[in-house]
């Protein structure tokens, strides 16, 4: 099935309580699949087509604030519209899932795949000091697998999580093993897992309040310090990445998502030509696998950041290796996916 369809099926199967979204290419299949599957008749999952991405993300805020497993999906321009809501979600420490099947920008851009939302996602597209747990799938299987993982991480840390995919993986068809069925939580389970949630004052407990507002500076600083402490724990515990042929690599490609798929082809061509290339694929874009990249940076002669954008992640790689090894960028823009041959050529240049 398509990557977008895998997201929808995985959501139904992992106990998701609600989906709120607005159509946008190239991810509309998520909402379309959910509408066709009618999960409200089986698991009781709510599916609602909102009037805008702004409404969608705020519906997610409402649902998340009441402790439910809720999600939305969109593509780049729609995710731009959601940034205010994402900042509020992060500020109010609400767990939820946002899927970005990104496309080329800026502006209305193109409907073709792109990775140009890297900065927006990992550097905070909205206002304030916040971080999004970001998972970057490189296959339809991972589209399916990361839905539950994203929810698990989001609830563990009370933080919004994003799946940053792209139009290629969203539209691509591959075989996929759907995750095992997991029932939605009961009201009791929810109240136990989320004692902070605004569910109504069950058992006449004290009122719960979900807000990101703290007018007194000292109080707001405390909120921020708490967030930063949480982010530090996430950075220590939740870094995920895949390595491919790095053992003997003299050159390293760092690439995520679609670009990582191309990289494997690049590596096989380059190795045929006698250039020992390996791949580090960040699975979590935030937290970023800086430590591992720094370690590999000590062993290789050069690093190529392959991105389907104008060079964004390359900055984080340079920070990771502290410029101790040359770090180059290569990529294509406007929705064009680089051909393996042109990437091999870039690596060849690095060897000269």
């Amino acid at each position: 099935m398509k990557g977008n369809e895998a997201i929808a099926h995985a959501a139904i199967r992992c106990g998701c309580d609600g989906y709120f979204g607005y159509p946008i290419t190239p991810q509309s299949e998520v909402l379309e699949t959910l509408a066709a599957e009618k999960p409200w008749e089986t698991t009781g999952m709510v599916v609602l087509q909102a009037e805008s991405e702004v409404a969608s993300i705020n519906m997610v805020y409402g649902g998340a604030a009441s402790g439910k497993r809720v999600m939305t999906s969109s593509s780049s321009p729609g995710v731009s519209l959601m940034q205010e809501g994402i900042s509020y979600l992060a500020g109010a420490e609400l767990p939820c899932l946002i899927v970005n099947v990104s496309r080329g920008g800026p502006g209305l851009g193109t409907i073709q795949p792109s990775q140009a939302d890297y900065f927006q996602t990992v550097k905070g597209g909205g206002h304030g000091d916040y971080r999004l747990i970001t998972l970057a799938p490189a296959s339809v299987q991972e589209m399916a697998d990361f839905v539950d993982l994203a929810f698990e991480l989001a609830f563990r840390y009370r933080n919004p999580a994003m799946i940053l995919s792209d139009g290629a993986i969203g539209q691509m068809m591959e075989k996929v093993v759907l995750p095992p069925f997991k029932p939605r939580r009961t009201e009791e389970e929810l109240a136990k897992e989320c004692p902070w949630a605004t569910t109504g004052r069950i058992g006449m407990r004290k009122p719960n309040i979900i807000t990101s507002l703290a007018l007194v500076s000292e109080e707001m600083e405390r909120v921020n310090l708490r967030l930063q402490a949480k982010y530090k724990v996430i950075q220590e515990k939740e870094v995920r990445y895949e390595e491919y042929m790095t053992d003997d690599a003299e050159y390293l490609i760092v690439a995520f998502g679609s670009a990582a798929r191309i990289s494997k082809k690049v590596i096989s061509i380059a190795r045929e030509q006698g250039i020992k290339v390996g791949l580090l694929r960040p699975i979590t874009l935030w937290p970023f696998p800086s430590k591992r990249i720094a370690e590999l940076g000590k062993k290789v002669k050069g690093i190529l950041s392959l991105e389907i954008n104008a060079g964004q992640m390359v900055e984080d790689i340079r920070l990771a290796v502290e410029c101790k090894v040359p770090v180059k960028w290569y990529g294509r823009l406007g929705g064009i996916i680089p051909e393996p041959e042109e990437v091999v050529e870039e690596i060849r240049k690095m060897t000269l």
Partner: protein
Amino acid sequence: MTKEEIMQPENIVYRKPELLNDVPMHYCPGCSHGVVHKLVAEVIAEMGMTDKTIAISPVGCAVFAYKYIDVDWQEAAHGRAPALASAVKRLWPDRLVFTYQGDGDLACIGTGETIHALNRGENITIIFINNAIYGMTGGQMAPTTLLGMKTVTCPYGRVPELHGYPLKMADIAVGLQGTCYVTRQSVHSVAAIMKAKKAIRKAFEYSMQGKGSNLVEIVSTCNTNWRMSPDKANKWMEENMFPFYPLGDLKDNG
């Protein structure tokens, strides 16, 4: 009979509603918000819904409503309260879900969310405080500011050529198929307050009966930014606001 004999607990005929806690409200002296807060607190308790209410506060003067009424609250981004409420009610169908919003929040930045939530027939209530001005930010022109009315961003009076016309949100809501109950009330007198309370109760009940969306507009004063005493503001409202925003039920499909 001595004062002490009268002031016995069994003789209490009115007191601050139990759900309205002791936190001093930040509203200006004489602000209509306080009265509406009392009514909301009374109705929730009288309906026995204290443990089943999820309320949404806006951005504006009522942003801190969550500090005063002892139910679960979510504080929304500016204008988005009806989107939050839509999701919450769908996810928790047996809960009493309402938003509490001002004219800037509901009729300007959140017009889209308001109209679509009402039109979808979400089983929620929107309580809409319309005082024709932005209170929190210091008295700027609102979408509901009357023609000729002076604010700090229309200091020479609102004129349609420059500022467009005041927006009658309740009248728009009437035409939406999803709305069950649309009413315009006020809290400037004892009689008006009693009627407003009944309207809030009716709206809450309709929402719990799954009859659709409900809009309770409360035409209110902002004596501070109108630059009047609370009493004069009430009189000014009667003379100037009521002719343009007439009180009464506009739609009752319950």
